[in-house]
């Protein structure tokens, strides 16, 4: 793993803290809202892993594309989708970033080229390859960043995609969020060789393992990788070693890991460690921290209000968005059976 850079500017430090905190607090709120049944379906929290999205995504250009998984709230927020639109989406409201159709696992945004939110493990990798291929063929100087968990590494699609990216020299940044578990399956129970960044090397892809709990390390690695991709028109791979503090989803009884293990990783929390470091280096003050918390809290409060005030799509519109031209709908929607919940 690369060395940790130790110094950071006040501005950059505050930005990272704010970014990570916005994700953290938003998701804590999501968990609450799930309890209140405002958010339904599957909800996968990113808590503990914020340094990855916060360290990588701000380095992208406006025209770059992002492909993510079902654990993508943080990525969407970092990419610039408003918290309002994200929350509204999780509520299933029309004002959501996917018009309410996708929910937590399928956040989309054409403006920022945020191409989902894919709930099939490894399903996003081929898509990312294709986006990069289109860029390359159109001579667009863009990068596609593809996030996925270490569980995806066992899927055939991962290997097919890495090979294609390397063979065709496509501008893709693969970011493996290795949080050591795929649901309840520990990495050592799913891979014969657990050193994931080496798998990328076996395709001739430049690859680095990174301390994914440290936003500075993440950021440095991302910058280097993106530079390499942009200048050399090759793919690159980052293995982010990280950990999720919460359950896999809201249904997970967490039988597969020890509480002590979780506690140990919590010591490495990307937010508290950065905060402590910046304070120790006297780059920020307690007032700064309070201000950041306040900013995040206000944004969340507004987002919840926005989502609450959002509208349910009329049930008559059920058949929308299947085909581009609505007259292509194969059969009309069934008679409206349910009225929208209150």
């Amino acid at each position, binding site marked *: 793993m690369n060395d940790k850079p130790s110094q950071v500017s006040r501005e950059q430090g505050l930005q990272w803290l704010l970014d990570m905190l916005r994700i953290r607090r938003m998701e804590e709120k999501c968990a609450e809202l799930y309890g209140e049944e405002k958010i*339904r379906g599957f909800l996968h929290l990113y808590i503990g892993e914020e340094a990855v999205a916060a360290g990588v995504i701000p380095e992208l250009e406006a025209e770059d594309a992002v492909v993510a998984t079902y654990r993508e709230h943080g990525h969407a927020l970092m990419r610039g989708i408003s918290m309002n639109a994200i929350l509204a989406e999780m509520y299933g*409201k029309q004002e959501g970033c996917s018009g309410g159709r996708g929910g937590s696992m399928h956040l989309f945004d054409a403006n920022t080229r945020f191409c989902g939110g894919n709930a099939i493990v490894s399903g996003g990798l081929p898509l990312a390859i294709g986006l990069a291929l289109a860029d390359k063929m159109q001579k667009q100087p863009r990068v596609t960043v593809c996030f996925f968990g270490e*569980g995806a590494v066992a899927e055939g699609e991962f290997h097919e995609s890495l090979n294609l990216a390397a063979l065709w020299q496509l501008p893709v940044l693969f970011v493996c969020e290795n949080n050591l578990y795929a649901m309840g399956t520990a990495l050592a129970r799913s891979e014969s060789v657990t050193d994931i960044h080496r798998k990328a090397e076996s395709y001739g892809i430049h690859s680095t393992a990174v301390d994914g709990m440290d936003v500075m390390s993440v950021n440095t690695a991302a910058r280097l990788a993106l530079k390499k991709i942009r200048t050399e028109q090759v793919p690159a791979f980052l293995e982010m070693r990280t950990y999720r503090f919460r359950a896999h989803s809201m249904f*997970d009884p967490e039988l597969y890991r020890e509480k002590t293990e979780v506690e140990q990783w919590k010591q490495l929390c990307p937010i508290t460690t950065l905060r402590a470091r910046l304070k120790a280096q006297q780059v920020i003050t307690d007032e700064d921290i309070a201000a950041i918390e306040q900013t995040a809290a206000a944004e969340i409060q507004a987002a919840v209000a926005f989502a609450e005030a959002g509208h349910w799509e009329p049930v008559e519109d059920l058949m929308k968005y299947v085909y581009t031209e609505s007259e292509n709908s194969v059969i009309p929607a069934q008679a409206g059976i349910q009225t929208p919940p209150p």
Partner: protein
Amino acid sequence: MNMTYREAMRAAMREALQQDERVFLMGEDVGRYGGCYAVSKGLLDEFGEERIRDTPLSESAFVGAGIGAALGGMRPIVEVMTVNFSLLCLDQIVNTAATLRHMSGGQFSVPVVLRMTTGAGRQLAAQHSHSLECWYAHVPGLRVIAPATLEDMRGMLRVALEDPDPVIIFEHNALYNREGELPDDVSVTEIRRAAVRRTGNHISLICYGGNLVKALEAADELAKSGIEAEVIDLRSLRPLDDATILTSVRKTRRAIMIDEGWHSGSLAAEIGMRISEQAFYDLDAPLARVCTAEVPIPYPSHLEQAALPQVATIVSKAREVLGQHV
């Protein structure tokens, strides 16, 4: 004994594991996690990690491995977490499991049991809400079954394991939490014949799996206005039990098929076609079906529910078929 459908399937697996050492369970998170739907919870402790085998996320390889292990003398139960992920292992199922016996001129057989959760209704959105039973039911060489009652959830597995050919069991996610009374001695049930779950003379409601509950509710509702619906639970989706279906339709002279698959190309269409072919002159009214609307399942509950078959839709469709526009 009072138990949930989940417990019934677990009991069936336990029994199979106890009685036949060739049986083992394999799949994503069946062990330490306790199963995505907690169906296999506790089995790892009892049977150990050799026989309750957590797999990597490699649907094609571990389903293929189940097929190979069956060929090699074992009796694997392979859990593909949900039908949605089975899209990654269709090649193994269709091109290997379903064909080996035939391609080898009958020399090899593949006694593998594949279990998959199916169905929508939990706001899991477009990629996690498929009902592709009709695809599997299309393939010669496979046997496809769908338990809809507590007894069948308890009793179908053993027969499936005894079958020398590949059997796919579809378990509807909405059933796991349901509870019911299970007689103590049920450990085997039929997997070849459809069952008449309610008798009636006016119309046949033909369904399977998770939708039996809705069909029975609809029948109760219809009964209030004097319409006696006969409810057929298919149980076996391949082969289909034409005899039971046709006997019912010849009696009621009207039929509605209820199916959570998308409308076009649904299993409902196949059943309708069989009725048209074989009981055309016995029908007093056009056939009808209640299927899922032709849209990827939307996340919000009101839209999802509007897309799925509902009791109210079945009831109004039945009245329509009977010419009662109430």
